[in-house]
């Protein structure tokens, strides 16, 4: 079955009571599941649709309630989406043959950019865009949000670095005497520094793994909440492997830097001073 999409904002009357419609069978239409919920109708109900609130009203039977492909830009919209047969749409609109956009599917192996470029050389009075261009136009908001996310992640990394340095400083103070003992019993600076680096990297790795676990839990909670809120299967939060690798790698690097700073600070002092002598 082929449906044409129409957005009817001004005039739509949900009339479940018309389910027992008398007379000739009304034409059929399809509704998105969200629109059906908004109108309070189900498959088989009859609703009335008009181009404007002044009418004329036409009865349609809801032949199908479907779940459309979701787009992030549309999840918060509360409009009602209908799909009508072309003849019914033209009759409702009263404007006759009037198309404002056409989707062209290209054959496999054909470059959409070439097709769009070729179409744009034809004097047809419209402009062709590739789906990537359309997506880019529609995702500018998300690019801004992504930049915010990047800024937040930089601030978070900076804060966690400071936190890690603080932990290492505190641990370093706690280890000052231990380092002094190790130096007195003949453990070389290199071995002590290596052990401090190992501890710092271990703390950073453990912290980042705990952070990854927390991130997964928060991500799941965010997805659960917003999917329910917007009634959508869209995924709102994703932790990708590159993000994981970047996070853990950066944490370990920061840990090593903190360990190196602590080792340098502790090992430049004589052993007897570290023992408080």
């Amino acid at each position, binding site marked *: 079955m082929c449906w044409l999409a129409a957005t009817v904002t001004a005039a739509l009357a949900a009339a479940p009571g018309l389910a027992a419609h008398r007379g000739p069978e009304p034409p059929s239409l399809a509704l998105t599941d969200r629109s059906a919920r908004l109108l309070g109708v189900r498959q088989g109900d009859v609703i009335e649709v008009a181009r404007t609130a002044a009418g004329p009203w036409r009865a349609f039977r809801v032949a199908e309630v479907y779940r459309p492909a979701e787009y992030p830009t549309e999840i918060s919209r509360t409009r009602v989406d209908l799909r009508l047969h072309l003849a019914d749409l033209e009759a409702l609109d009263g404007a006759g043959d009037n198309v404002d956009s056409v989707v062209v599917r290209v054959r496999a192996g054909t470059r959409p950019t070439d097709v769009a470029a070729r179409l744009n050389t034809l004097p047809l009075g419209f402009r062709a865009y590739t789906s990537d261009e359309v997506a880019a136009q529609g995702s500018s908001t998300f690019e801004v949000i992504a930049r915010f996310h990047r800024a937040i992640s930089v601030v978070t990394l900076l804060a966690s670095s400071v936190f890690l340095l603080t932990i290492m400083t505190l641990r370093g103070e706690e280890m000052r005497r231990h380092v002094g003992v190790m130096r*007195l019993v*003949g453990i*070389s*600076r290199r071995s002590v520094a290596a052990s401090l680096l190992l501890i710092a990297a271990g703390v950073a790795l453990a912290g980042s793994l705990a952070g990854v676990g927390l991130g997964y839990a928060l991500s799941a909670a965010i997805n659960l909440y917003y999917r329910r809120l917007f009634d959508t299967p869209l995924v709102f939060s994703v932790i990708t492997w590159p993000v994981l690798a970047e996070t853990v790698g950066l944490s370990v690097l920061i840990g090593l830097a903190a360990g190196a700073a602590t080792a340098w600070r502790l090992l430049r002092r004589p052993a*007897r001073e570290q*023992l408080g002598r």
Partner: protein
Amino acid sequence: MTAELPPAHAPGAVIEARDVTKDYRMPGGVVRALRGVSLDVERGRCLAILGPSGCGKSTLLHVLGGVDVPTTGAVTALGRRTAEMSDAALTRLRLRHIGFVFQRFFLLPMLTAEENVLLPMIEAGVPPGERRARARALLARVGLSARLRHHPGQLSGGEMQRVAIARALANRPQVLLADEPTGELDEATGREVGMLLREVSTEGLAVVVVTHNPEIAALADRQVRMKDGVIT
């Protein structure tokens, strides 16, 4: 790995101090902790250094053990002047030839008794099987066979000091330097530790014990007294 150090140039003396002074630069000016100290530490003998707090006993011990170098004068440890040795060489000297025992034990709390004893041997490159056997033998010798897996927090003061002595003996040093080893122990336990140090010296080690305790000092073969940085 380092080459073995040559034997002491004077028979019996493993460490010699000659006219040693040690100055510390403090905010209030220079403090002279040692003023022309001369002393021989001899193999197979136990030397006790007595004196009031602040008289320079611990400083002397650190200078003898290569933790510090003298400001003037000379300390010769196992045939080499410590002032001419690099920090790395002094570290190797301490690792292989000098054992330290401290008043507050200074065991690493995250390690078990056995691991504390193993630590210097790991650094010295003793093979795993040998170092484990040696650690167990040393802990058995100080009466702690049943405490191998215990952490310092699970041990009494006397037990911790015995672990510290086992650690100090791990690399079969020629000298054992003990800084107030009984200072944190009760009288009976302190005597036991003193006897243990005495026993170690009879096996050929040079033992130096800094102490306030005349009873512990009485266990030594020789006693020297210090006051204001000078041996009296």
